[in-house]
């Protein structure tokens, strides 16, 4: 049996903080008084997210999600909801772009404090097929504001 230690890239991928958000997701549930709701799934691996937002005066007052899926997609969703509270919509969309840049391997994005806990997901960029997992909640966010806000 192979008992060599896991690859460093794997340890970087599955950090404590990511598993913590996966197992104890923040802001999980549904939102009364939501102004924006989006459901997205990834048919390939079955990750799902229902994202609800309450926007007032151009700012996100509350955000909740219900989701099923891998640790990466669920941790990303949990971390995202923490970050979005009280953000103006354009600010939230700018964060989505930073997140996307980090997933493409952009080092400055990975060092950007504005991404908060999400920086723990920087290792995902080394696993190209998992990037869509990390971006699923963010795609739901940008979808939510595709129309009017």
């Amino acid at each position, binding site marked *: 049996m192979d*008992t060599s230690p896991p690859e460093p890239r794997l340890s970087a991928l599955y950090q404590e903080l990511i598993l913590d958000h996966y197992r104890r997701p923040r802001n999980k549930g549904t939102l009364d008084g939501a102004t924006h709701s989006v459901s997205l799934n990834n048919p390939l691996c079955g990750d799902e997210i229902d994202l609800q937002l309450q926007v007032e005066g151009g700012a996100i007052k509350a955000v909740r999600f219900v989701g099923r*899926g891998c*640790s990466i997609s669920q941790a990303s969703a949990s971390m995202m909801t923490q970050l979005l509270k009280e953000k103006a919509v354009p600010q939230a969309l700018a964060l989505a772009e930073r997140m996307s840049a980090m997933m493409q391997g952009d080092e400055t994005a990975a060092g950007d404090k504005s991404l908060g806990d999400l920086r723990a997901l920087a290792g995902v960029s080394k696993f190209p097929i998992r990037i869509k997992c990390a971006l699923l909640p963010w795609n739901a966010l940008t979808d939510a504001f595709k129309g009017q806000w």
Partner: protein
Amino acid sequence: MLDAARLRADFPLLERQEHGRRLVYLDNAATTQKPDAVLHAIADYYRTTNANVHRGAYSLAIRATEAYEAARAKLAGFVNAWTPEGVVFTRGTTEAINLVAGSYGRAHVGRGDAIVVTAMDHHSNLVPWQILCQEKGATLRMVEITEDGRIDLSDFGTALEGRPKIVAFPYVSNALGTVNPAAQLTRLAHAVGAVVVVDGAQATPHLKVDVRALDCDFYALSGHKMLAPMGSGALIAKPELLEAMPPYHGGGEMISRVFDDHSTYNKIPHKFEAGTPNVEGAVGLAAAIDYLGAIGLERVAEHEQALAQAAIDQLTQIDGVTVYGPRGHRAGVVSFTYGDIHPHDIATILDQDGVCIRAGHHCTQPLMRRLNVPATARASFYIYNDLDDVAALAGSLVKAGALFGYVPA
């Protein structure tokens, strides 16, 4: 058990490394690797025999046609088909089932009729029937499965009381490894006058198939799951049913005489093979059948059963692992979950050790709902796998557990 190491030498892809590790390919239910015998047969066909079939009057075209028809006869013999004319080449199982639904189904199913499928059917033996039922105003009845992942025979009996026109089920489940009692299910369905469609995608590569002994009416298979190229496959049918069926696709090859406003159709099986067929696929499939025939399907089944048993034994010893599907007699497909580690995460971690498994719903979403999981991880074995591969799977899984805090690293 088979001498897997010796067989592996026939498969050039299996000599590759992944992430610096020996490749441990355990996704054979999705598709198998191809031996040199198949790769060479395809290359030889193009180097020596290629021309369009059933058209040219010159020797080369005649040889190409002979190669194509010889492949049909070989496949007929392999599954003990009624006649070679009862073998329609298709792109695979999916197209074969769509052919039955689109031709036989559209001609025979009407408003208020019933079609029976099972909760363990692959989407390709479910969605074509959903589409047909929606078009015709017929009802689709899904037979439940038991706790240990078998077709619930009492629910199957209840479903038959609705006197369905068509009963469809998988011979072997791609998600659970269950080997269904296909001959018995066929007998029961025939007793109420139903026509029986067997999804043989996972059975044909792994056990000795005899469609005449099963006595089913239609049998679908995929070449790429049994060492042959992608895009090869067939519908095996009782010839008298095919004779009476309307065509499926229109075009060249399937016609006899074409007038301005109508046509008469070619004999079976050509009536159902519109357009230029996948001749390299048929030739490759014939080579795959020779390769498997030399080993013997009984020995293939025995080998896989041993690997599946070893995998179940080793995986269930890991605290937190759940293995789905029946124990005892089963095929070499082992579906499992590990605590709250998502199967997708398991697959990523195993991949770093060169272990290729499938994670997801395996095109069986109704089944996943019944198992109450969004997805499973699945290891599936073939002739070139051995006990070292099972050990690699178990070892890598322990690492996944360590990363997620299940066992001390």
